[in-house]
């Protein structure tokens, strides 16, 4: 079973590059050596900007390949575009839900990744995809525009919830072939998801938790590394689904435990109802 060791993964290298960039930003702004969550969410925005740009670039390449009737190039561009999308999943649902449901819908959407996937990878055709790709690109452009608005900012609370939720969801539907069953590239989706978790954690939360609870911070980092190892396999069939589920659940649960230590809420469903009931008393 091929596996990728944690210290040498490309995603790990990319993540470290982002963490280094954050530390530079912190130094320039004269803040303490450890980055605050406020610095972190600022640094996280360009990470998302880079990846929506990748998703758009891949989709444009796919558009060109489809027009040329080049199936292989269109498939490669689909995978390239999707990598950019999947690494942003801590925020696609929480901050960009209105575009997420248009870019990544299923099962019977007329546009979006999966409508295109089934034609490119299963029917192995390029015909009839001009409109679906154009629609997907239009929604990605809107996503980018919203992100680039100066007033737009990520907040630690919602970002933690999105990150923990993604950790909980990694590996779901593995038995049926995962999120991209026709392209058979679900393992790439999962690898990008885990990288997205790692980047969000390291950029925004890791340093603050290290100050508040170094032991818990160490455990979270170890579990992220563990999850990265578990999905760092050649294909989804080689992945141990149960270990990924348990690993993802443990990581999400640890993030829940970390929330109050980070000065955040534990984001349980029903809390808002209890608060409302308290206020009503």
């Amino acid at each position: 079973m091929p596996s990728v060791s944690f210290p040498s993964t490309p995603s790990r290298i990319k993540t470290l590059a982002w963490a280094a960039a954050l530390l530079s930003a912190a130094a320039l702004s004269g803040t303490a050596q450890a980055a605050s969550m406020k610095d972190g969410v600022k640094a996280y925005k360009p990470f998302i900007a880079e990846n929506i740009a990748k998703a758009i670039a891949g989709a444009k390449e796919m558009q060109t390949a489809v027009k040329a009737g080049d199936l292989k190039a269109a498939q490669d561009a689909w995978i390239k575009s999707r990598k950019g999308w999947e690494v942003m999943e801590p925020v696609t649902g929480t901050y960009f839900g209105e575009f997420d449901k248009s870019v990544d819908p299923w099962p019977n959407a007329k546009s979006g990744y999966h409508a295109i996937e089934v034609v490119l990878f299963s029917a192995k055709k390029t015909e009839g995809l001009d409109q679906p790709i154009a629609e997907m690109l239009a929604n990605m452009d809107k996503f980018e525009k919203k992100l680039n608005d100066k007033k737009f900012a990520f907040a630690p609370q919602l970002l933690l919830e999105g990150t923990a939720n993604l950790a909980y969801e990694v590996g779901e539907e593995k038995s049926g072939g995962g999120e991209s069953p026709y392209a058979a590239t679900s393992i790439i989706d999962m690898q990008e998801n885990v990288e997205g978790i790692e980047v969000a954690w390291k950029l925004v939360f890791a340093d603050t938790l290290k100050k508040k609870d170094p032991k818990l911070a160490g455990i979270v980092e170890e579990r992220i590394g563990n999850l990265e190892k578990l999905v760092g396999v050649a294909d989804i069939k080689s992945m141990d689904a149960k270990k990924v589920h348990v690993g993802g659940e443990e990581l999400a649960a640890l993030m829940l435990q970390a929330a109050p230590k980070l000065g955040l809420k534990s984001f349980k469903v029903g809390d808002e109802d209890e608060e409302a009931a308290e206020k009503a008393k």
Partner: protein
Amino acid sequence: MRFRPLQAVVAAGLVVAASMAPAHATPVVSKDATLPVGSELNEELLNQPTELFGFERAGGKRSYLFNLGDMLFSSSSIFGGKAADAGMSCNSCHQQGASNPKLFVPGLSAKPGTFDTTGPLFNAKADNGVFDPVTVPSLRGDKYLAPYGHDGRIASLREFIRNVIVNEFAGAEPSGQVLDALVTYVNEISFLPNEKITSDGHLTDKASDSARRGEALFNKPFPKNASMSCATCHEANAAFVDHKVHDIGTGGYFKTKTLINAKFNAPYFHDGRFDSFDEVVGYFDKHYELGLSASEQSDLVAYLDTIGDADTPFTPNTVQAEVDELSQFASVLDVAIPARDKQVIRLAVDSVGAEWREVGENFPDRKDTSVEGGVAERMRARASVRDLVLTLRQVAMAAEIDDFQEAARLYGEYRKTVAVVTPYLKAAEQYSLFNPRVHEKHFAALRQLADLAK
């Protein structure tokens, strides 16, 4: 042909019946899936086979061992290899303790409802090199149906269950407690009541005249061998079995099958070669040269249909039914946490968590284009399930580091969370796959996607 009022009424009835029938889920479509493309586990049942347990009929209660067995029966954690990876459990084949007429795995099934338990896919060590699929039997009344296996090769239910776990599905050697629990559970799976037969297997006044004529034929000596009748092997006062194996010309010795609730056990014979009682009766007529007329065959079929019936064969699945069942599964923690039984705590957290995840999948997220309305309710239901799973996971994490006090506190929190989120799950039920209309739309969309792939 003119459409007469009577036909209109019948047709309307059929429409209702069709909408209540289990919608056909799409089979496996991805080459990346754990099971081969074309596999069908028939997991998305709206109307589930009715479950009835012996202690319920006697006015008793669920024991710890029973709850543990019930939970394990639905858990992939006791299996290994591909079965565990595919999330399969005993319940995948024996749905609610009954059979699974649609189960199909390419390479292991000759037709839906059959499965080669000694094939290479799930445990290469048990591969006998012969493609010999057999039907998936219902487990109703199993305690009365020894010996076990189609050829009756295993005398004890306990040994049979161990063989299923270890040899058929590559699981680790089960502990004594695990086997005791599963045996306890299976022994409680009861035949379903049928008001058309008495406790000793005779017809009541609810049965039709045709069935009565069939009963007489069933007990009538065969023309070419007066020492035999259908009832020779299918003894009416003994669950219609004789606990023996017989060669009836189907390729070897196979044990007598029960006829109670058998209407729901198709396909028939050890290898599932017959899809209906008509075919079964036709075979016996020919093989034993019974010389039955068409109307006599019809009467025998009516008899089999009558004694094989059940008053309530199916029960609609609901949010409340799922909440109740999973609360019963999780209740093993009431005992396991104070007993510091890490094995059961781990099994319970893994199994109940996996079951909750399946419940969660019934609430499509906002990206599901086949479902309209109730986005906020559906998202809240999904988040509710996430909270339940994560709270349970923390129970296991605490137990792993021997902090059983914290595990007990977290289990209490889990129970409170179940109470808090159940109304959220119910509020989303109408927009979920528990609703037959939503269910059909969702799976129609999946079929549409699968068609596009062709």
